[in-house]
């Protein structure tokens, strides 16, 4: 009972903070917060399939793209689409589709979820680690499809003038909802089953767990929220092109969830703030630097080299990240009630 009250209060506090931030901050700060919020949603969902269920996947950029395109096409008014599609006329269904904001976002999530379901069959029913390769390829296929189907996606030109409905009120609240949903999943028989599959798939099966089902459920859930994140991204950026959803997005999310601790939701939140923050701060690596009086020259991309090295170093020396696979309240509790071992 006590826990439930604390939880309610924390949620209330968060909502108030979101509302306050939305009212108070200037647009530059808000755009940073919005960015962090969207990435938080993506990181939390990516953490479920990768961290909690332990299935190495590279899916985010693909599902984010799907969510973004579906949402954009639903949000842009039909007449605007007619003008916008430069190469060919939009396909009729694409031209006429139109929805309010929330249903548009949800449709992005649902579309991603259905595709995840389809992908689950070839991937999870066989032994072997094909999820990563299939999702990696999937990301490329989405881009190929977006480029080659101008009637549906406006090809390389992408979509612009997407109605900018996503503000921090929306993004912050959805991020909060995502966080709560993820925690509810983790602390249920489904989360436990996912962790069991992660730790020892054969032993999990020996406990009666249908590992195919559990992996599929985790994958579909991750896809859903990644689709939602994609929809929010489309509305936030107001412009989307096929090249925006490259592997780089997935890689950034991977660094985030590894840093936070694979499997820890609160870790993923913290790491999102840290990584998004340092992405900006580390921009100086791309510029000309003066080290010991020598100029390095401007090298765009040096930042990413450093990040790649960081990831490798983390995997070699600090695999558990910041929180391991536990949540912040468990870590605090364990610090205060240290039990002996037997």
């Amino acid at each position, binding site marked *: 009972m006590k826990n439930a009250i604390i939880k309610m209060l924390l949620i209330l506090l968060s909502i108030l903070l979101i509302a306050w931030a939305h009212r108070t901050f200037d647009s530059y700060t808000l755009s940073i917060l919005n960015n962090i919020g969207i990435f938080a949603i993506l990181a939390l969902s990516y953490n479920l399939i*990768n961290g909690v269920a*332990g299935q*190495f996947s*590279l899916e985010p950029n693909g599902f984010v793209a799907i969510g973004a395109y579906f949402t954009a096409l639903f949000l842009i008014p039909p007449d605007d689409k007619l003008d916008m599609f430069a190469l060919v006329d939009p396909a009729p269904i694409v031209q006429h589709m139109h929805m309010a904001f929330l249903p548009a976002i949800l449709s992005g999530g649902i579309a991603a979820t259905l595709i995840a379901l389809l992908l689950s*069959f*070839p*991937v999870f029913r*066989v*032994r*072997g*680690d*094909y999820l*990563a*390769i*299939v999702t*990696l*390829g*999937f990301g*490329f*296929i989405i881009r*190929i*499809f977006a*480029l*080659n189907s101008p009637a549906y996606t406006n090809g390389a030109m992408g979509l612009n003038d997407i109605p900018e409905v996503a503000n921090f009120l929306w993004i912050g609240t959805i991020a909060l909802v995502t966080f709560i949903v993820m925690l509810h999943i983790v602390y249920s028989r489904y989360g436990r089953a996912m962790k069991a599959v992660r730790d020892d798939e054969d032993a999990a099966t020996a406990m009666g767990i249908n590992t195919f089902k559990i992996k599929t459920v985790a994958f579909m859930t991750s896809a859903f929220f990644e689709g939602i994140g994609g929809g929010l991204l489309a509305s936030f950026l107001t412009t989307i092109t096929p090249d925006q959803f490259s*592997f780089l997005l997935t*890689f950034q999310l*991977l660094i985030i969830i*590894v840093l936070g601790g*694979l499997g820890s939701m609160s870790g993923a939140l913290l790491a999102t703030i840290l990584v998004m923050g340092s992405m900006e701060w580390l921009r100086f690596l791309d510029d000309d630097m003066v080290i010991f009086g020598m100029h390095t020259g401007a*090298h*765009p*991309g*040096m930042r*990413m*080299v450093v*990040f*790649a*090295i960081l*990831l*490798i170093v983390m*995997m*070699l020396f600090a*695999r558990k990240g910041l929180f391991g696979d536990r949540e912040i309240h468990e870590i605090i509790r364990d610090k205060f009630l240290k039990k002996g071992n037997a």
Partner: protein
Amino acid sequence: MDFTTFLQQLINGASLGSMYALIAIGYTMVYGVLRLINFAHGDIMMVGAFLTYMGTSAGLPFGAAVLLGILGSVIVGILTDKIAYKPLRDAPKISLLITAIGISFFLENLFNVLFGGVPRAFSAPDYLTKVWHIDKIYLPVTVLIIPIVTVVILTGVLWILYRTKYGMAIRALAFDIPTVKLMGIDADRIITIVFALGSALAAVGGVFYAVSYPSIDPLMGVIVGLKAFAAAVLGGIGSVTGAVLGGFILGFTEIMVVALFPELGGYKDAFAFFFLILVLLFRPTGIMGEDLERSRF
């Protein structure tokens, strides 16, 4: 399609298939021995191409530049294993996979920083850029040479695997690492040989690619790598002959389908993905049908 065009495309397919086959072998061998999908393997191909490019730019004769490319790739491949994979031999599988992706991303961005993202023109020597015209067939010399050289190389690889003691050790390792160690074989050395061999082949594939599509860029290994892996799965992951078979099938299909249905041209890179899905759905062990639990070369 008339016969000469068919023949033309057949040869093109053999050429493309050769490249996929060479790279697929590296994937399948590392997977067979370590159960690891070496995401960085496709980038090794890129490294080979770029180092060869550096050699020719520095004025080296082409042959020497190619050797430089191969040697460099072998070193990168071996280092990758020693620095990143070996320390994680006993770690959970996901750690290894994440590290592999990290290495891949590192190589791509390193070469991006060193060479810039704009594709570089790769200058092949004159004797390779000649084009023969037979009837209406348009045959760049490279398209002919590549399959021939590939077949020679593959024969060599199979000879190593089946006629030398190192090859036997590699095949034994694919079966069961602990037992092999108990027999006194230095498993780490064999694994190093696997990485070296795979990287060398990938480098050759990279040079072939650079010569066929004379521009190279740091991301060239990504798509090709993905396709080569799909080819390896198609042929039967863990099987070298399977990888070769899968590579050629994929190469032919890509060329033929686009030749027959030009409107599908934009989607040619997606064929590999669909092959992969189909194989996983209907025959996960691939054409050569090796049991995933116990793989053999």
